[in-house]
C-alpha cells in the first residue's frame, strides 16, 4: 500500500513540475513548438509513471515460483531433490505433535493413516456415520498409474504429458510430474492392503482404457474401484484407530478453522448428533473435504458432499483457485423428474466398448422424443456416431469436456433421443456382438443393473440414454508444491485443492491424486512445516481465538434459526442449481455470467430472509446442516461466475461461447490467461482480489488440444 501511495505522489509531483516548466516556457518565449515539446515530455513522463504503478500493483498480485515452492532442477528430479532436502521430524518429536485431518475420503483416510503410522497423533473428522462412507466410495471406473504392465508404451512422462494436455495446459508441470511419479507406488500399496483389483487369467493385474489416453493404464476393481480403494485406506485407518494413534470423530462437521498468530491451530466442529459446538486443537490442520459440485444441486456427488470447509478457510485467508473449472461428465443418466435428488453416473469405462450416437435424421429424433421409436429401431446407416465422426483418432474416448460439449451440440440442434430432447445413446450392441453378452456382463454388469433399476429399461436390448451432468470440480483451495495453503500450517488435499488437473480432469485421475496426496506427498511435505513446530506446546482451546471462532459460529446458527421464513432449504438449493446450470454450465457467455451473478445475489437475499429451518440447533437437525452448507454454496456459485467472467477464453471445463474455433472447439488465449486465478477474500459482500500464479511451461510445449488425428 505504502508503495502505491509513493508512486501516486511521485506522478503528481512530476505532473506539477512539468506544468510549472510549461508555464515558465510560455511566459519567457511563447513559442508554440517549444510548448508542444514540453507537453510531449509531460505526457511521456506520466505514461511511464502509470506503467510503473500498474507493474507494482501487478507484482503484488502475483504468486512467484518461489512462493509456490516449486523445487529447482530438471522436471524428473524435482521431487527427489525436494525429498532429499526437506526437513524431517524425528520419531520422539512426532509423538508430541497433533494433526487434524478433516475428511475420510481417499485423500483424508490415506493421509490420516499414513501420518499415524509415522507416529503423529491424528484427529480425523467426517460427516457420515462411518469413515468408510466418504463420497470416494462411489467412484466406479478406475485409477491410473504409469506401470506400463501392458507394454503399450506408457511411462511416467506419458502419464504426465497426457494429464497436462488433458488439463488444457492450465496445471503446474512440477505437481503433475510428481503425481505421475508416485502413481505406481499407489498401486503397489493398494495391492499390499488386499485391494482385489481385476486380474487376467495369468494372475497379473488387468488394465482398461479411459478418455484422453491412447494406452491402457487404468486399474480397476469391477465397477467399484473407488469403493475398494477407500476400503483399503479405511482398513489402514481402522488399524491406526485400534492402535490409538487416530481418534475418529464421525458425524462431526467442521465449521471453521482457528488461526492463532497467523497459523492454523485447530477447528470448530459441530457434533451432528447432539448439535453441540466443540473445539479441537492441533499443530497443523489438513483439509480433505472433497469438491463443491453440489453447488449445482443436481450432480453426481453424494448428498452430503459440500464446499463449506473450503469456503470457510477461504474466508480466513486461504486463496480459492480456479473456481470456474467444473467438470461436466458426459455419461450420466438423464434428468427425469422434478422430484429428482441427484444424478447417477454411468462410468466412463463404458466408453471403452459403448458407442455414442444420435439419429442422422431429425424426423427419427422427433419420433424418439415422442416415444414412437426405440433406439434399436433405427438402422445402422441412419445413426450418427458423432464422436467417431468428429474425432477419428480418439473416437468415443475423447476427454470428458469434449464429449460433453459434443452431446450438447447435437441436442441443441434437435437430435436428442428422449422425451426432453436432452439425451444421446450409448450403445453396446456392437460390443455384445463382438465379445458376447457374458463378457460385456462381466465387465459392466453392475453398471447395467444400476441403469436398469433406475430407468426400468434393459441396456442389453436397447441402447442406454445418457446426458452430461456436473461431476467434479478441478478448482479448489490454492496450495503450493507442499500442499500448504496460503495460511501457514493449513494444508489441503484431494478434490478440495486445485492442484493437478488444470482446467479438465482426465478419468481415473482423481483417485490417483487423492491417494498420491494422502499416502505419498502430504506425509512428507507436512514434516517440512512441523519440524519447526516441535517446540510449540499443545495449546488450550480456551484461548480467545477459539472462543471467538466458536462465538461466530453460534451467532451464524442463531441467525439462520431465527429467519423462520417460508422456503425449505432444498427448494432454494434447486433454484441455485438451475441458475448455475443455465448460466455457469456447459456453455458460458459474458452476458450469461452477469445474469448468473444477478440471480445468485437474489437467491442469497431470498435465502437469508425466507429459509425455514424446523427444530432446534441443539439437536440432530438435518435441515440446519443443509442450510449451513447452502449458505456457502450460494457464495461459491457467485465466485464461480465471477471467475468465469474474468477468464475470457475457453479451456477444459470452462467453455466461453465467445471463444471457439469455427469448428466449435475450445479456443484458449495463452497470451492472456496462462495463469492460475487465485481469489483472495476481502470481507463479506466485497469484491475479492484476483491474484495470479503464472503458469510457465518449461518442459512441455503448449499446443492446441487435438483429438482428431
Amino acid at each position, binding site marked *: 500500500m505504502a508503495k502505491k501511495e509513493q508512486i501516486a505522489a511521485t506522478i503528481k509531483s512530476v505532473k506539477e513540475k512539468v506544468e510549472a516548466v510549461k508555464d515558465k516556457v510560455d511566459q519567457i518565449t511563447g513559442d508554440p513548438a517549444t510548448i508542444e515539446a514540453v507537453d510531449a515530455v509531460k505526457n511521456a513522463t506520466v505514461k511511464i509513471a502509470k506503467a510503473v504503478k500498474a507493474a507494482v500493483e501487478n507484482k503484488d498480485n502475483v504468486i512467484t515460483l518461489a512462493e509456490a515452492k516449486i523445487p529447482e532442477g530438471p522436471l524428473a528430479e524435482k521431487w527427489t531433490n525436494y525429498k532429499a532436502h526437506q526437513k524431517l521430524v524425528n520419531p520422539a518429536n512426532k509423538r508430541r505433535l497433533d494433526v487434524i485431518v478433516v475428511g475420510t475420503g481417499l485423500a483424508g483416510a*490415506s493421509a490420516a*493413516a*499414513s501420518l499415524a*503410522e509415522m507416529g503423529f497423533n491424528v484427529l480425523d473428522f467426517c460427516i457420515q*456415520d*462411518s*469413515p*468408510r*462412507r466418504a463420497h470416494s*466410495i*462411489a467412484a466406479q471406473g478406475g485409477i491410473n498409474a504409469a*506401470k506400463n*504392465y501392458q507394454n503399450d508404451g506408457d511411462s511416467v512422462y506419458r502419464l504426465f504429458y497426457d494429464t497436462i494436455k488433458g488439463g488444457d495446459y492450465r496445471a503446474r508441470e512440477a505437481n503433475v510430474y510428481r503425481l505421475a511419479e508416485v502413481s505406481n*507406488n499407489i*498401486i*503397489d*500399496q493398494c495391492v*499390499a*492392503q*488386499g485391494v*482385489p*483389483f*481385476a*486380474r*487376467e*487369467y495369468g*494372475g*497379473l493385474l488387468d488394465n482398461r482404457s479411459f478418455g484422453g489416453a491412447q494406452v491402457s493404464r487404468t486399474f480397476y476393481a*469391477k465397477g467399484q474401484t*473407488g*469403493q*475398494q480403494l477407500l476400503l483399503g485406506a479405511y*482398513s*489402514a485407518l*481402522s*488399524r491406526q*484407530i485400534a492402535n490409538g494413534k487416530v481418534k*475418529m470423530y*464421525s458425524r462431526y462437521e467442521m465449521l471453521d478453522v482457528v488461526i492463532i498468530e497467523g497459523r492454523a491451530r485447530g477447528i470448530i466442529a459441530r457434533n451432528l*448428533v447432539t448439535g453441540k459446538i466443540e473445539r479441537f486443537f492441533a499443530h497443523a490442520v489438513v483439509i480433505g473435504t472433497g469438491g463443491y459440485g453440489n453447488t449445482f444441486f443436481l450432480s453426481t456427488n*453424494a*448428498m*452430503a458432499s459440500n464446499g463449506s470447509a473450503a469456503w470457510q478457510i477461504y474466508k480466513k485467508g486461504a486463496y480459492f483457485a480456479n473456481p470456474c473449472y467444473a467438470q461436466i461428465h458426459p455419461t450420466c443418466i438423464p434428468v427425469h*423428474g422434478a*422430484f*429428482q*435428488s441427484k444424478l447417477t453416473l454411468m462410468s466412463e469405462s463404458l466408453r471403452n466398448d459403448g458407442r455414442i450416437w444420435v439419429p442422422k435424421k431429425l424426423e427419427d429424433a422427433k419420433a424418439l422424443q415422442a416415444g414412437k421409436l426405440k433406439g434399436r429401431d433405427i438402422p445402422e446407416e441412419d445413426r450418427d456416431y458423432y464422436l467417431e465422426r468428429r474425432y477419428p483418432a480418439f473416437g468415443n474416448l475423447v476427454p470428458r469436456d469434449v464429449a460433453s460439449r459434443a452431446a450438447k451440440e447435437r441436442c441443441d440442434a434437435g437430435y436428442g433421443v428422449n*422425451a426432453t430432447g436432452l439425451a444421446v445413446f450409448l450403445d453396446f450392441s456392437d460390443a455384445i456382438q463382438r465379445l458376447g453378452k457374458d463378457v460385456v456382463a462381466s465387465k459392466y454388469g453392475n453398471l447395467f443393473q*444400476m441403469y436398469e*433399476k433406475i430407468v*426400468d429399461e434393459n441396456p442389453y436390448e436397447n441402447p442406454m440414454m445418457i446426458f452430461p451432468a456436473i461431476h467434479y470440480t478441478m478448482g479448489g483451495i490454492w496450495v503450493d508444491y507442499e500442499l500448504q495453503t496460503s495460511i501457514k500450517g493449513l494444508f489441503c488435499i484431494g478434490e478440495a485443492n486445485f492442484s493437478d488437473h488444470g482446467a479438465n480432469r482426465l478419468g481415473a485421475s482423481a483417485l490417483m491424486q487423492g491417494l498420491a496426496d494422502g499416502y505419498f506427498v502430504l506425509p512428507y511435505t507436512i514434516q517440512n512445516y512441523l519440524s519447526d513446530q516441535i517446540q510449540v506446546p499443545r495449546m488450550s482451546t480456551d484461548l480467545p481465538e477459539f472462543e471467538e471462532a466458536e462465538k461466530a459460529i453460534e451467532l451464524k446458527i442463531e441467525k439462520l434459526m431465527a429467519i423462520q421464513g417460508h422456503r*425449505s432449504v*432444498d*427448494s432454494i438449493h434447486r433454484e441455485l442449481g438451475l441458475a448455475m446450470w443455465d448460466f455457469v454450465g456447459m456453455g458460458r457467455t459474458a452476458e450469461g455470467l452477469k445474469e448468473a451473478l444477478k440471480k445468485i445475489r437474489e437467491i442469497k437475499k431470498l435465502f437469508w430472509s425466507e429459509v*425455514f429451518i*424446523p427444530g432446534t440447533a441443539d*439437536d*440432530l437437525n*438435518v*435441515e440446519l446442516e443443509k442450510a449451513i452448507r447452502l449458505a456457502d454454496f450460494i457464495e461459491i456459485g457467485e465466485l464461480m461466475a465471477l471467475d468465469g467472467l474474468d477468464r475470457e477464453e475457453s479451456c477444459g471445463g470452462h467453455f466461453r461461447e465467445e471463444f471457439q474455433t469455427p469448428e466449435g472447439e475450445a479456443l484458449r488465449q495463452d497470451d492472456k490467461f496462462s495463469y492460475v486465478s487465485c481469489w483472495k477474500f476481502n470481507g463479506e459482500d466485497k469484491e475479492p482480489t484476483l491474484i495470479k500464479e503464472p503458469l510457465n511451461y518449461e518442459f512441455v510445449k503448449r499446443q492446441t488440444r487435438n483429438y482428431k488425428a
Partner: protein
Amino acid sequence: MEKTINITLKVWRQAGPKAKGGFQTYKLENISTDSSFLEMLDVLNEQLIGERKEPIAFDHDCREGICGMCSLYINGHPHGPDTSVTTCQLHMRKFKDGETITVEPWRSAAFPVIKDLMVDRRAYDKIIQAGGFVSVNTGGVPDANAIPIPKAKADEAMDAASCIGCGACAAACKNGSAMLFVAAKVSQLALLPQGRVEATRRAKAMVAKMDELGFGNCTNTGACAAECPKNVSLSNIARLNREFICAKFQD
C-alpha cells in the same frame, strides 16, 4: 408416460436415543413411480416442512447403492421388498397404488436408534478395527505384480469385498448376528496372499469383537444373505468357520 400412485406411510418416529418412539401415519399423493424410495421420503419431508413440522430423519448419502449409509426396514424387509438393492435404489414402481408401507429403523441391540430412522452402526467399524486389515504401513511394499493371484480367487475376493457395511444382515437376523459382515471381510482377505498371512488371527479377533459388542450367535438361518443388497454369499460364513476352527486348533 409418467405414472403416479397414492400411498399411506406408517413411519417410526423417535425424538432421540432415549425417547419413546411410535408409528405416525402420513398420506402421500401423486408419487411418481420413477422416483426412488428416498426421493419419495424427500417429498414427504418437503410436505412436513411446509406444515412447519420436523422432517423425518433418515440416513443416506451416495444414493447409488454403494456407500452403505441408507438403511430402513420396509414392509418387514431391510432395504425393502426388491432384491439385490439398497433402499436408495428401490423405486416406487415396486409398490402398488393405495398401498400402506411400513418404515422402521434397523432393529438390533448393537445398532441403537439415534433419531427416527437413523441408527448408530459404529459397532461395525469396531469389528473392522479389531482385525479387518492387512498389517502393512504406507511405503516399502513389493511391486503390485510380484505375486500373481489366480483370477478366480481374485474375483471371489472381490465378491466378498463388495459388502457395503450397511448392517442389513444383522437387522435381518433373528439373533442379531453380524456373521455375514464379518465373514465377508475375513474371506476377502483370506483369499488373497497378502491377507492370508494373518488370516486366522484376524478371524479370531473379529469374531471375539462381534461377540463383545452384543451381536447374537449365527444359527445358519440364511436370512442375512437373502436380504443382503450386495448378494454377499453364505459360503463366506463357511470359510469364516474354517478359519475360526483353524484358529482354535492353533491355540
